[in-house]
């Protein structure tokens, strides 16, 4: 845990970014996931760089969401789920028993497929993270965090007059942006997005994609999507999953124009999926 916030390590990361060598922010090695007896993910190894968008694509049930949920250990909440292998964030093993999962999740935010604002006010939704992690020292401080998070999520102008309204009363797209605001309120290093636009209409989707474009300057974003167009639009790198294994990973334009694997080719040209 220490290294994740270690000033020195941070500096190293910045230095490497500066010279254009992508140091992996998140790195997975031989990750296997079992649901009871069933192996849902086999031997996935991938490096994900900081400051950018990594897209996971693949047909339904290929394990892309499962892998995403390993990165903030959401799979811990499923009793029969077992994860082997190694996943590191800034070289720190996140499955280290000494590592605290609650603090891990404060560093790795997540946005879900279906917008899931808490049944509380808009303000409380955003203030929730900073509050439980003790990020603010005063009411004014908290107000400021809420405002800046909502601004970053492009929601501030729409809701600034009704911060005390329920978060569940907004439109789907607004709810999803509220969930993004909630996730970035604690300023995480990695944001996981699990098909964030699948429940939204095209206009709301476009707004979310714009938002992702803005956020990637400051965050490491990993997005699972079943829309290849979306992956092509928002991501710099793409990983293709098939039947529980990682088939191919690389720069997005490469993957879409010149896939190395036959299965990737079949998928992006629409032969299956």
């Amino acid at each position: 845990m220490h290294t994740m916030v270690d000033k020195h390590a941070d500096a190293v990361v910045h230095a490497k970014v500066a010279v254009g060598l992508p140091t992996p922010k998140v790195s997975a090695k031989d990750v296997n996931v079992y649901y009871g007896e069933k192996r849902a993910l086999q031997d996935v190894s991938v490096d994900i760089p900081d400051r950018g968008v990594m897209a996971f694509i693949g047909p339904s049930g290929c394990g892309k969401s499962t892998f995403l949920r390993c990165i903030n250990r959401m799979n811990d909440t499923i009793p029969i789920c077992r994860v082997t292998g190694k996943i590191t964030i800034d070289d720190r093993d996140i499955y280290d028993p000494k590592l605290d999962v609650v603090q891990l999740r404060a560093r790795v935010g997540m946005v879900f497929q279906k917008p899931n604002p808490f049944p509380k006010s808009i303000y409380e939704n955003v203030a929730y993270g900073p509050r439980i992690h003790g990020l603010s020292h005063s009411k004014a401080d908290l107000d400021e965090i809420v405002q800046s998070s909502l601004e970053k999520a492009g929601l501030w102008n729409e809701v600034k007059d009704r911060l005390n309204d329920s978060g569940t009363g907004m439109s789907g797209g607004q709810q999803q942006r509220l969930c993004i605001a909630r996730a970035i309120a604690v300023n995480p290093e990695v944001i996981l997005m699990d098909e964030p636009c699948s429940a939204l209409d095209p206009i709301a989707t476009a707004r979310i994609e714009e938002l992702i474009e803005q956020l990637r300057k400051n965050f490491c974003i990993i997005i699972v999507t079943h829309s290849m167009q979306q992956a092509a639009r928002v991501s710099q790198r793409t990983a293709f999953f098939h039947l529980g294994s990682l088939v191919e990973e690389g720069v997005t334009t490469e993957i879409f124009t010149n896939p190395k694997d036959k299965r990737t080719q079949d998928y992006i040209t629409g032969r299956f999926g």
Partner: protein
Amino acid sequence: MSGYYFVTMAALVLTAFFISRARAGRLIKGGVGQLHSLPNYHGLFAASAVFVPMLVIYAVGAPLLERFAETQALSFFGTDAASDALHRNATLRDIQNLVAGQYTGTPADALLEAARTLKSTLWWGNALIYGVGVLAGLLAIGLSVGRVSAAFRARNHFERLVVVVLLLCAAVAVLTTIGIVFSVLYETIRFFFDPSLKGRPTVTEFLFGTEWNPQAAMRADQGDIKTAYGFIPLLTGTLLITLIAIVVAGPLGLFSAIYLSEYATGRFRAWAKPVLEILAGIPTVVLGFFAALTVAPLIRGWGAYFGLDVASESALAAGLVMGMMIIPFISSLSDDVINSVPQSLRDGAYAMGATKSETIKQVVLPAALPGIVSAFMLAISRAIGETMIVVMAAGLAANLTFNPLDAVTTITVQIKTILVGDQEFDSAKTLAAFALGFVLFFVTLVLNIIALTIVRRYREEYD
């Protein structure tokens, strides 16, 4: 008499069934396909065509005849016998005893005459019912057997009848409610507004009176005891015991539900759930026994140790045990609502780095709040209406107090006390029990309706 009627009816029904079925059966020559309905349905149709009118004739005729015969018999006793219910019933019983040959003593002439009239009226009346019934049955056989043909849609007709019967069964629930409302409301209105009733209170006296003493002075030396029907002490007593019960069962039931639905492993649940189910299945009379014989003396003993005077029928003992009774109630209802909170909300909180308890306290419980509130309301309604525990462990004295160590009485205890034993329907005391029953029904009904509405809305929100 009714025995003959029903035997004949059964015979006619069977005859109709077999004749029709046989006739329909003979229509089959090339195969069943020629018939619209199977022979059995023709038989069933004919049988019901006999059964229904005969049953209706008896069900309408018999009570009418009885009423008519009684009026005839009572006409020998002048007008006062017919008007006063008490007198009327006594005379009727005498007449009936005489008819049955169980009358002791020498009957008066009028009584003999009345008995003879009753007997003959009943005989002629019953013969008439029998005749009409048999006639109707035979007619029905004739008509329905005549209708048997390949094209006749016997099944459709019979199935329509079945649907009506099914509807009537479903209507029993409505009839029960109407019966309840009718019985409590009618007597309650008499309690407040019947001018012939001695000692009846006004509505205001009832609702706001602070003294409850339905027992009128029996002897001269008790002269200063006055009957009073002030509802307030019963209300406070009921609320006090209910409050104690909820204070016990609320947290225990809710925390049990939280633990079972959020923390417990499958194996633990397999052990813990049956324990709660056993608790839920224990009859209240057993809990009352435990409250009165074990818990109450225990509390009294502890009270004495600390120099406190605890009534032997303290509200605390009844309330504690009642609380235990409603733990499974609250926990199973809360378990349901907690489980119906969508997993995505929990995931949202976990992904923010919330611990499990923070997720529960700050996300799951607020989301489940409407459901939990309605669970509590149903539990309160259950506690208010619970009878045996308080009958056995709470007192009879209507003390106006909020001290849980004192004896208090409740609405249900008073209903039971007044109505057990001999009672006549013309005293204010008896009717008071129905007024209490009305209050009880009304309060629990309102609580239930609100709670059920909240639950339904809540379900719709997350479905």
